[in-house]
């Protein structure tokens, strides 16, 4: 998946805006938004909020989690823990990038928030890389990683599954070979049991 596809999915998250115009309810395929009353906060999808903001028709209210204190705490917890912590938003990176990119003036301490988000992203990515490495080295067959966001999963997507596929097919060769080797030992000693074993291998 392209990162822009993940961005598209994340744009459906809701955000509060204060419109500077009045308009009735608008009916859209994804649901209805509004009614807009100038000066009264209203909840809209991010994509609409950003479009209105670009046309100077509203002011964006930052999401609850987008403040320095809460993000600093999240960063602290993330660096302390060996595992992945739950992020305040499922698309923290995309939301942060979109809102801070277009509506930076509406968000207090935008530059600091941007830095902290980047820090959290880097910590989590390095954790992800080292856990993949440990997973491959130990030859595990399954792993459980909680609280990974879509963008993070997407960053390793074609590489990791394909590497696991290749590893599986290499391991399968070894396993089949051991079976056949055993059956050959039997073949040299006892014909009937070797045949039985052969059928067993073929049928399984």
């Amino acid at each position, binding site marked *: 998946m392209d990162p822009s596809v993940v961005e598209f999915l994340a744009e459906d998250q809701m955000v509060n805006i204060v419109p500077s115009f009045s308009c009735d309810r608008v009916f859209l395929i994804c649901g209805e938004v509004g009614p807009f009353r100038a000066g009264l906060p209203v909840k809209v999808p991010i994509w609409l909020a950003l479009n209105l903001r670009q046309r100077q028709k509203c002011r964006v209210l930052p999401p609850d989690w987008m403040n320095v204190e809460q993000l600093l705490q999240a960063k602290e917890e993330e660096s302390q823990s060996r595992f992945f912590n739950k992020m305040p938003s499922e698309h923290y990176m995309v939301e942060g990038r979109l809102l801070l990119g277009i509506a930076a003036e509406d968000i207090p301490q935008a530059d600091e928030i941007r830095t902290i988000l980047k820090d959290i992203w880097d910590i989590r990515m390095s954790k992800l890389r080292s856990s993949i490495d440990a997973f491959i080295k130990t030859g595990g067959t399954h792993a459980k990683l909680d609280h990974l966001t879509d963008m993070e999963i997407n960053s390793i997507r074609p590489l990791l599954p394909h590497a696991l596929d290749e*590893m599986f097919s290499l391991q399968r060769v*070894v396993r089949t070979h051991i079976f056949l080797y055993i059956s*050959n030992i039997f073949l040299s000693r006892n014909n009937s049991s070797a045949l039985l074993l052969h059928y067993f291998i073929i049928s399984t």
Partner: protein
Amino acid sequence: MEKDVTCEMDRQNKKRNCVGKNDAETDQEEEKELVGSLVVKKLPSEGCTGKNEDPLVLRTQQLFHTLLSSDCELGVVWIPGHVGIRGNEAADAAAKDGATNGTLVYWRESMAGRSLTPHYFSLEDIFATQERVPCKFILPVPRLGFLDPSSESDDIVVGTSAELPFWLARAISSRRRNIVTIDIPKIYKEAYREILKADACVVDLHKFGLFFYQFGAYISRLNHRDSAAIGAILVQTFKERFRQVMDWAHNSGTDPAISQRLDSLERSLFREGHQTQAQLDAWLSQGPERITAAQMVVNHKKRKLADLEHL
């Protein structure tokens, strides 16, 4: 007696594998049908139907009856032709596809389309089986002396050593047709395995072989006492080098020297990881975008009210 034979033949005819014992008493009609159906099966392209007007079928029948009247034991055996042979089926399907859809068969596997067993036309698999293995002839082979460039004679004598492509060596070293014995190529021998065991990450795998893993998997499938050890070293090498491949894919620039140290499998993984990372980087550095109206919506002319009134 008569009935028994007929039934038996009928049943075996259905099994397409007829071995019928005859003693001239058998019903003539039944025999005709049997021969007819056998010939039809063998020659579907000649346009034969159940009725026997084809001169070839008639001639076969004639021969059959001559044989029947002579006092001998007669067996009828169905020979399967090329049906069910994997390569032939694949080639048939490809030819049919080309004839009906006009598509050229060209199978380049992307990692995404890669299955656990390689496709018959997979170029990578073809190249991997083209690698040469040292072989020793244990039977004399007449008229193939040219395979051994150092010999002058027309024939290959017992004990000749030659490097044959793996696909050929595998076919002529099977239990049924044991003409050569295969030796393990040197890159999979103990000395090289020790190098990989010591530290797989510093090795230039590309120099070991372009298809180190795929070819190695074929080698480890051979019936050799080192086979299991080779299989194990392949898996271990892959595991140890994966971190490096992933790091290079995520962090390297466009240094061509790096991907030159990987074998083809690692290289395709590297290329994928690199592409994903490039997309992610592009996304991270991209500026804000603006939603615009689609060109179709802009160009769509509104109907005038006057036009609507006419409707």
